[in-house]
């Protein structure tokens, strides 16, 4: 059947990854083969996006739901399956420190990351999510240290410790849930609310939330973010902030909507999101390099995403998905633009004179990040405020003020950067490094995407509403899984 073929999106990058170190030693073709495979994956993902409107499940190994592992694929998964190879290709490491089989190993880590992300987008099994998450974690440690600097190893080790601590927490949570229910399929867990409405289950949920929250840059477990993003290569930071964090958010979204749709859990998510937003944006205000600013702002933006998902309604889901996809597009572009603008922000005075195009694009993306009207960022924030105003509860009202106040803070630091860039009177203090054409192409593609989103905003909104409706209809998922099970017995 066609729907079972979706696993090739995991199998093929892995197949390539296992061979890359051997292959890279022998021939120089690896620099072409890996991107070619990514392009083929994009084609496959597009064909899937057009072929399937309704959610479907894939039984791995042909074993029905509670016994085996299932993939549950809805519209959001299909979108992510498309975006994963696209973003990886845009942030591809065309230049490298490594040669020979080590170059092959570096590329293999990228392909493994692609496979792990695709798996996370599809998996519908709690432990399988954990395994894919660990795979993503190990691949990202490898990417972080691939800049081969002392501080990258140190930041990477601190990241590894936090991440491994999170994994232990997630594993404890999974163990507690298995104690209570004896099953791991998310859709099956969703049909067992009685076993899961007690204190141990709540504890398990908090542990899982914190565990998977590490990569999603969630509040108490995000200390690694500014360190790693500053210490490693900027494009790896872009990949972690743009793509990897979104997949971690999707895990949390799956667990919240299916396993634990309780009011307390939504308020917990709201509080963590608020803390992330406030701390992230206020620290961004104090940052003195662009990379620092962008990493703190990334924490703030993901705080916004969590706030959106804490609203238990279709508008909330829609706002969350919109914010997520918007950040996925904008943050990597900003990281790519500032890749060669190192040093303090004040050192960038008058840079717009030397590199006008990059400065204009920076302003464009910054305005969208801030949420200025014609840009998609505005509509995402607008949806979020709508959802928050509809929800009742004092904390949600407070969240409205917090979101608005933090938007002002965001405006302050972004405009400070922009005015520095466009300070036309000052002499440019340092030379501008030309960016590689591949970089420029990536940035231009992302900018085109952003402008296309401005132009096509209403069909996009309809599509988003459809995705959100599918996500909210959890009973459909339960029935889909249970129906398959009944048919087999």
């Amino acid at each position, binding site marked *: *059947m066609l729907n*079972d073929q979706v*696993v*090739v999106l*995991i*199998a093929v990058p*892995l*197949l390539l*990854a*296992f*061979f890359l*170190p*051997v292959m890279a*030693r022998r021939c120089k073709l690896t620099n072409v083969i890996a991107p070619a495979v990514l392009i083929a994956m994009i084609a496959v993902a597009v064909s899937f996006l057009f072929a399937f409107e309704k959610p479907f499940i*894939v*039984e*791995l*190994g*042909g*074993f029905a739901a*509670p*016994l*085996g*592992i299932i993939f549950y694929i809805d519209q959001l998964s299909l979108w992510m399956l498309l975006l994963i190879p696209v973003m990886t290709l845009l942030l591809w490491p065309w230049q490298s420190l*490594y040669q020979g*089989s*080590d170059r092959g*190993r570096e590329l293999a*880590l990228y392909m*493994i990351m692609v*496979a*792990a992300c695709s*798996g996370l987008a599809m998996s519908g099994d709690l*432990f*399988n999510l954990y*395994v*894919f998450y*660990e*795979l993503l974690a*190990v*691949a990202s*440690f*490898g990417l972080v*240290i*691939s800049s*081969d600097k*002392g501080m990258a*190893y140190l930041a990477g080790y601190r990241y590894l410790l936090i991440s491994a601590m999170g994994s232990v927490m997630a594993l404890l949570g999974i163990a*507690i849930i298995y*104690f*209570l*229910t*004896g*099953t*791991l399929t998310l859709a*099956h867990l969703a049909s067992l609310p009685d*076993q899961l409405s007690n*204190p*141990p289950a709540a*504890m398990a949920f908090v542990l899982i939330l914190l565990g998977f929250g590490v990569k999603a840059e969630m509040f108490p477990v995000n200390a690694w973010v500014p360190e790693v993003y500053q210490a490693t290569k900027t494009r790896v930071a872009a990949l972690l902030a743009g793509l990897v964090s979104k997949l971690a958010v999707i895990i949390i979204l799956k667990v919240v909507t299916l396993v634990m749709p309780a009011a307390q859990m939504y308020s917990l998510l709201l509080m963590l999101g608020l803390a992330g937003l406030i701390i992230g944006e206020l620290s961004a205000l104090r940052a003195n390099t662009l990379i620092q600013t962008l990493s703190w702002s990334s924490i703030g933006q993901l705080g916004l995403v969590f706030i959106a998902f804490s609203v238990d309604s279709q508008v909330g889901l829609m706002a969350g998905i919109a914010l997520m996809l918007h950040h996925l597009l904008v943050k990597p572009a900003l990281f790519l633009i500032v890749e060669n603008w190192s040093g303090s922000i004040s050192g960038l005075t008058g840079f717009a004179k030397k590199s006008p195009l990059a400065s204009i694009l920076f302003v464009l993306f910054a305005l969208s990040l801030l949420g200025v009207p014609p840009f998609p960022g505005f509509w995402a924030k607008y949806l979020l405020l709508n959802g928050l105003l509809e929800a009742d509860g004092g904390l949600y009202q407070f969240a409205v003020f917090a979101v608005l106040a933090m938007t002002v803070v965001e405006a302050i630091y972004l405009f400070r950067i922009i005015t520095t860039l466009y300070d036309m009177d000052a002499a440019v203090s340092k030379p501008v490094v030309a960016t590689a054409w591949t970089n420029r192409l990536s940035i231009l593609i992302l900018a085109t995407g952003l402008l296309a989103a401005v132009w096509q905003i209403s069909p996009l909104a309809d599509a988003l509403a459809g995705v959100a409706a599918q996500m909210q209809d959890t009973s459909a998922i339960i029935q889909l899984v249970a129906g398959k099970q009944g048919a087999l017995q």
Partner: protein
Amino acid sequence: MLQFFPLLFSAGLLFLLTIVTGLLPFAQAPMLAGQGVLYDGIASTGAANLVTAVVLGYRGIDTLMELTILFAAAAAGSLAFSRVRRSAGLIAEPPYILDKAIGFLLPLLLVTGFYVILHGHLTPGGGFQGGVLLASAIFLPVLSRSSAQLNHEVISLIEGLAGVTFIVIGLLALYQQGAFLQPLFDHGVFGSLLSAGSLPVLYLAVGLKVGAELAGLLSTLAAEGGEDGTA
């Protein structure tokens, strides 16, 4: 010096986990999924060891991903040392006993390793445990003779081929039976060595891959890399 906050956190965690585990139904596992595996395991996989049935059949993709994690860790580990000046082996003078014992230990470890791997579907053991034994067998010469160096090309070839075998068997199942990693072939006579269809083949791939991966990691940690130019 003891810090206040970590102590408080640990005490809180201890308290919460104690309360929560006290509430858990110990020794009466609900087994919503497990019961099905117990009754259906032999019919769908043919393995007498049901843990193997789960590892390679019901949750085969977990195992594939786990192999990939080892691969990624080994790749990242060797990236870490790839740009460092290589130094000589770790041990300058091999201990006499180790040097003499190696001729006897090496075949023993290899045979035990393969035995454990190939009986994984019948008795406790399997690809991981056997793979670790293989890794120590491969690594032993490096430990005992400073001159012996692992052939990294062969190691990466083995790990590549083993991984590819696992995926190709999975894809074969996808195109023949309709599902990725579905068990293939006849189940054979229950309880005999050549039974359980494709499971022993998969376990052999797992064992070889784990062995090659870990041997590579060990030799990376042991032999390569001298002093870094300091900062």
